[in-house]
């Protein structure tokens, strides 16, 4: 038997309870509904789902939490939620709504102790630490607020710190690769895999099926996350799983 499979994770951006991007599914009644879209991906063989709340308002938070409850009652694979998680009470609210894991980003950079608190109360397996970074002249820097604000933290130092603080997984987005569809940041990913002992989810750069093979072999990633290639139907998950199996990668076949 083959141990833990590499995971394929579609990411859904949610604003005011509706998915953003997703034009491929316009002919479906559930087009804008994240729950319906999540169900489609689950049926297609996605191993896990990520829902990111990109709403800024308090009212939007309530809508998002209600959506998380609906996902939990509908979908039978694990899912992670992120966006706007600033304190323990946000984590509590989303886990109570039925999320399996939560993803924190800016709040962890601003208040690293939040990672310790989450893992203390809920276990390390619920805590995904998202890191957005890009290489500058003096090395890889972590960025805040969806990439809008640079920090002085080095990617690799920060990755080690979040692992030491007990985070269960790292979701690393290479800002340079994101949206370009030329492949994942395999060199940085492989280095991350070497220096921390928690799973790495690779994000940013998926354009072709070969990119997924490379991120698992060259990039040593445990999971690969993508949005638009799935939303626009450029890559279909059953085809991708079939391809990766042929390439000798341990993935869960689409049932």
């Amino acid at each position, binding site marked *: *038997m*083959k*141990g*833990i*499979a590499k*995971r394929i994770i579609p990411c859904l951006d949610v604003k005011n309870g509706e998915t953003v991007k997703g034009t491929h599914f316009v002919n479906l009644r559930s087009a804008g509904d994240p729950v319906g879209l999540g169900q489609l991906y*689950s049926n297609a063989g996605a*191993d896990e789902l990520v829902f990111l709340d990109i709403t800024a308002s308090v009212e939007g938070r309530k809508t998002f939490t209600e959506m998380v409850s609906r996902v*939990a*009652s*509908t979908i*039978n*694979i*694990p899912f992670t939620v992120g966006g706007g998680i600033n304190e323990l009470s946000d984590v509590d609210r989303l886990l109570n709504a*039925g999320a*399996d894991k939560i993803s924190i980003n800016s709040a962890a950079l601003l208040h690293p102790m939040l990672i310790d608190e989450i893992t203390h109360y*809920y*276990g*390390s*397996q619920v805590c995904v630490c998202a890191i957005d970074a890009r290489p500058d002249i003096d090395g890889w820097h972590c960025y805040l607020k969806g990439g809008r604000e640079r920090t002085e933290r080095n990617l690799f130092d920060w990755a080690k710190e979040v692992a030491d603080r007990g985070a*269960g*997984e790292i979701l690393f987005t290479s800002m340079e690769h994101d949206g370009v569809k030329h492949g994942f940041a395999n060199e940085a990913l492989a280095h991350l895999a*070497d220096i921390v*002992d*928690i*799973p790495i989810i690779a994000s940013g750069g998926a354009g072709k099926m070969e990119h997924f093979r490379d991120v698992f072999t060259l990039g040593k990633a*445990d999971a690969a996350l993508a949005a638009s290639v799935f939303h626009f139907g450029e890559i279909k998950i059953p085809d991708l799983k079939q391809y990766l199996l042929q390439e000798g990668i*341990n993935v*869960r*076949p689409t*049932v």
Partner: protein
Amino acid sequence: MEIAIVKYNAGNIYSVVNALRRLEIEPLLTDNPDLLAQADKVIFPGQGNAGEAMAYLRKHHLDQVIRELRQPVLGICVGQQLLCRHSEEGDTDCLGIFDVDVKRFHPKRHEDKVPAVGWQEIRTNDNVLFKHVPEHVYTYFVHSYYVPLCASTIAEADYIVPYSACLHKDNYYTCQFHPEKSGKTGEQILQNFLSL
């Protein structure tokens, strides 16, 4: 058919409730010994610390209740581990239905990550729990402790060491993985349990 879920201080119980509702069953979540004893089937879920869970069960006299159940029982994750004799987690004496001790994973290589989180291939036997389930299939696990292979093993997995993915003895069935999060395969296994 009345399906009772043992209510105690273990996390993640609502994901089991949700899974049963998807199968159009409204379970009874209870720690009442009489209601548990009367149910047609009992699900014993769990996620969290085995030592704290056993202490809670003893304090509320649920340990004796669970041992005396005669209807089909399904232990999930920590629920499975608590049905064994002893757990390394907190050096805890457990319920002793299965004559085997729960061990902690010790990584052998840098790639071995604990807790083990994700989809693992399992190999099932011809137990009724796996009706319409392929011999080789993937299910979703979250665990740092495991049950070694033993006489009650009905499905095996292999992560760091070969271990028991499922056990069966008399009226007790267990899964180390989370059937409620294991897609269609998990749903089929739950359905098979409900059909016992």
